[in-house]
């Protein structure tokens, strides 16, 4: 005799796996059911390197299209789903092209709490236009990581966790370094202070251990107060030595979208198994 709850769990798992198989091509094979916001309930993602139109350096739409995973087996950096990887600058409530010049597209308007910011599909924003060098980006400049919104835009609520076993490196005002036992540097930005207990430079941490809560901090003034200059999100970076197969380009920020997609799928599977009642879409209603 199969219990109804077990049956539902198996059915939901089948749906999830069916949708995953189409994700790599940029869209699901099976049209998924939609939630109250009209967005897919099941995880979908646009292909790596496919930026929002015109938001790449030089008003292009192409980032890094090499799909290789640079951090295989890593844990997703946010404790629990759902989470939404997308652009902060060109999402609702972002500044859009106004900060880069008229040739770049404007943001769609609204506020960061717009339901569209809290829906799938995911969007790669590594190499999105910035004035900073990003050696792996086509133009040599661009966004050096991936922005991820937690399930709601509440400050100081959603935990980020260690992606691997490792040690804490520099704890800055804006960023925290995790030096993984695999030899990479994973950087978490915009975390609320204080961090989780025991998170200090040199401390050993275990995979999945809490590091801090997601916030919108971009600096600290000389009077000690924090500058809150961005939306509520985790900016996540992976730094490692890299080559093109023949030459050594040093240690720098690497394209990480596929590593995040891969780890998020594993998180969803475990979330589904451990907390079946958790809804997969929770639009953000606070600003």
């Amino acid at each position, binding site marked *: 005799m199969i219990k109804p709850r077990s049956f539902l769990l198996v059915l939901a798992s089948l749906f999830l796996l069916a949708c*995953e*198989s189409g994700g790599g091509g940029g869209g699901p094979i099976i049209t998924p059911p939609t939630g109250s916001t009209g967005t897919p309930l099941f995880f979908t993602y646009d292909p790596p390197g496919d930026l929002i139109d015109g938001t790449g350096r030089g008003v292009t739409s192409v980032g*890094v299209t*090499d*799909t*290789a*995973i640079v951090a*295989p*087996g890593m844990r997703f950096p946010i404790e629990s789903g759902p989470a939404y990887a997308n652009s902060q600058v060109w999402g609702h409530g972002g500044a859009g092209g106004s900060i880069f010049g008229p040739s770049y597209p404007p943001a769609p308007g609204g506020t960061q709490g717009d339901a569209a910011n809290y829906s799938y599909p995911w969007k790669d924003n590594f190499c999105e236009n910035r004035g*900073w*060098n*990003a*050696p792996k*980006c*086509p*133009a*040599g400049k661009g966004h*050096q*990581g991936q922005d991820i919104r937690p399930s709601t835009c509440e400050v100081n609520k959603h935990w980020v966790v260690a992606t691997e076993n490792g*040690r804490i*490196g*520099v704890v*800055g*005002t*804006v*960023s925290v*370094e995790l*030096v993984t*036992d*695999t*030899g990479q*540097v994973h950087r978490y*930005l915009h975390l609320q202070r204080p961090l989780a207990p025991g998170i200090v430079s*040199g401390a050993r941490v275990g995979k999945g251990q809490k590091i801090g809560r997601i916030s919108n901090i*971009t*600096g*600290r*003034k*000389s009077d000690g107060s924090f*500058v809150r200059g961005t939306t509520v999100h985790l*900016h996540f970076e992976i*730094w*490692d*030595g*890299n*080559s*093109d*197969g*023949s*030459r*050594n*380009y*040093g*240690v*720098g920020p*690497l*394209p990480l979208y*596929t590593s995040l*997609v*891969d780890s998020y799928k594993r998180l969803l599977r475990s979330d589904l198994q451990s907390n079946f009642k958790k809804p997969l879409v929770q639009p953000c209603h606070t600003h």
Partner: protein
Amino acid sequence: MVYTLMRPASHFSIKMTCFLALSFVFQFLTPEMALAQSAPTISQLVAAENRGQAPAIGKTQTVAKQLAAPSRDFRQARQVRVPIDWAAAKKATIAYQRAGRMPKAALAQSVMDEIAMPIIVPEKMPANGHVFGKDYYYHAISRHDGYSVSVHGTCVLSEIRSPGDKKAAADGMQIFQTEDGMAASFSLFGAAYSVMMVCDDPAGDSRCKSTAFMKKLVDSMVVQIGGGK
């Protein structure tokens, strides 16, 4: 005619004047100061090794990583261990030692023995600094006034192809702004390195946008040989 006869005498006078002037200056230099002139900076070492393009990685060894769950959608980036040019690293270390440029805080021998690659650390490594790592990578962190510094070195490279690679190759050492400071990325002695300056007030501290300050920071570092080499 008179002018022609005078020229050799003038040259001789100039040479003598220069010699006497230099002798006067050198008598005030200590042996350490004189040798310090011969220790190359990190950026000089990088420029010499890069010669206008990122260096070739030589004979590599594929690193087998144990995967928790191989991805069904994407391939794993190939990771290779690159050979270290120990002769060049040793030469640089000796040059720094002869110049009297050593990390002010001693690095623990046990840590040094674990790390099988050349270690680049701040010469003025404060007592609050840490160096840790194992075999193929290390990480050094130190706290300074208004900012922290981390140095990361590894001899395992991930293979990721991008059109941006050509740009990176032309620059040798890349110095660039990050979300909260500055960074330098380079290869040296066969290994890969980054130096990161993490600022307390990235928007308000002018040092956090200064390429010149970052280059000076990198050049204030010294090379030590790990792995008991």
